[in-house]
């Protein structure tokens, strides 16, 4: 009897040791697992079967309408390197869409750290579609005091912007002839991981009434849904998934779609860790209860 009890105790102690080893797992092993879950899918074929959501489709449709009406679009490149991974694929997909339909693009920027990023992005996509600066696209560059600039933009953007990013007088840029304010743009995009998209609504949309779409990081996406219901926003692009959806509508695989397989595997790994952690926590609690009973 005592031998059997000893055997039971030994196996119970082994289980406990195993349990506490896993519960005290070095966090660096978790990091390695996440890293592998993110990195390995890049060696697989990208996910291409992504169904677009209503608000991504409506954003896409606005650019299509801009092409039909031959009106330009305005893009606020209000992101910096910190949110580059999520917002750059979005920006590239929108610009690609616009250039592929011969829609002219005007870029502005209210986030200082992202100024040259915006200029590079426009230039990079323009090269792909053989578009010329000043004829097919223009970048106004950075200006502080977004509220004042947006209020001026509603009347005449030349009140705030005298020259473009490269120092050229706006009156000498052929594409800008006939363009004056928000009314002359079919859609206005703001791509940002900050609170700037809501500033566009406060000082722009509610006052001057234009088709407005916000492209935001996944973290802040949930905050912007109320503006869709109220009609203040016509579309919403939330995080890398929205970029992938837009690429899907465009039929061009790029960073958004490439990242989605990694995104899924990253999620699965985290979910697995959460489930395992909870099960182990439950088992630990049961062992602790058993120990208490034995002591009593």
């Amino acid at each position, binding site marked *: 009897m005592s031998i059997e009890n000893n055997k039971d105790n030994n196996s119970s102690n082994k289980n406990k040791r195993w349990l506490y080893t896993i519960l005290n797992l070095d966090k660096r092993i978790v990091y390695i697992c996440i890293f592998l879950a993110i990195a390995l899918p890049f060696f697989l074929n990208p996910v291409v079967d992504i169904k677009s959501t209503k608000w991504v489709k409506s954003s896409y449709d606005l650019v299509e309408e801009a092409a039909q009406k031959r009106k330009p679009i305005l893009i606020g490149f209000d992101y910096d390197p910190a949110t580059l*991974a*999520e917002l750059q694929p979005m920006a590239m997909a929108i610009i690609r869409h616009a250039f592929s339909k011969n829609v002219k693009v005007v870029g502005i920027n209210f986030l200082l*750290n992202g100024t040259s990023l915006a200029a590079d992005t426009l230039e990079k996509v323009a090269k792909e579609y053989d578009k010329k600066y000043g004829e097919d696209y223009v970048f106004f560059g950075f200006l502080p005091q977004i509220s004042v600039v947006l209020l001026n933009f509603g009347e005449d953007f030349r009140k705030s912007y005298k020259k473009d990013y490269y120092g050229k007088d706006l009156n000498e840029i052929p594409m800008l002839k006939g363009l004056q304010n928000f009314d002359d743009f079919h859609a206005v995009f703001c791509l940002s991981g900050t609170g700037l998209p809501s500033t566009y609504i406060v000082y722009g949309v509610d006052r001057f009434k234009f088709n407005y779409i916000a492209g935001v990081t996944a*973290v802040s996406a949930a905050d912007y849904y109320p503006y869709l219901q109220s009609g*203040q926003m016509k579309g919403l692009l*939330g995080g890398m998934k929205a970029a992938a959806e837009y690429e899907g509508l465009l039929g061009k695989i790029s960073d958004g779609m490439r990242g989605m397989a990694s995104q899924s595997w990253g999620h699965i790994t985290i979910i697995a860790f959460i489930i395992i952690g909870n099960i182990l926590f439950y088992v630990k609690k049961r062992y602790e209860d058993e120990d208490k009973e034995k002591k009593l």
Partner: protein
Amino acid sequence: MSTNPWIWVGAISTIMIFTYLWKENPLYRLAEHVFVGISVGYLICVTWFNVLHPKLYVPLFQEHQWVLIIPLIMSIMMLFRFSTKYGWVSFWPLAFLIGFSGYGIPASIDTNMLKQLQATINVSFSGGIIPIITALIILFGTLSCLIYFYFSFPHKGAVGKIAKFGSMLLMISFGASFGYTVMARISLLIGRVLFLLRDWLGVVH
């Protein structure tokens, strides 16, 4: 593998930052300080070339628009903030800035409260079963969440049940926000990993 030296700088900096995951170390510290220094330098350059030079220096000193002396003086006054003795001088331009911000209050109330309230009251109960369910969720969801934060009545009986429903909706909303946060953080890692594998090592196309 990339032959562009700037890609190498980016890749090595990324790896230096990632070493923090192993443990705090001098490489991480170095990368962090270099990043802060470069960012500040970049901000100063862009501010000078995009703002101060075209909007202040040229109009004031070359085109003689003397009215711009006022913002110039106010900008200089702002720099007194660094002095413990004369720090109060910076309060004047600061007061002007805060005063101007007041302009945004009615606009913000209109955008974030009145328009949202209007949209909730005017929910459409037409267009099929799904839009009707959505409209009901919006209407009852808003009301129950408001009741959850209403403490003049004890949360008992019907009020308690509605408040509980409101708190459940809030939990769902927090869960969705947390899910989005996880997605965002993974996206950032994806961006860096793709940069290392494609732009630097060239093993992914």
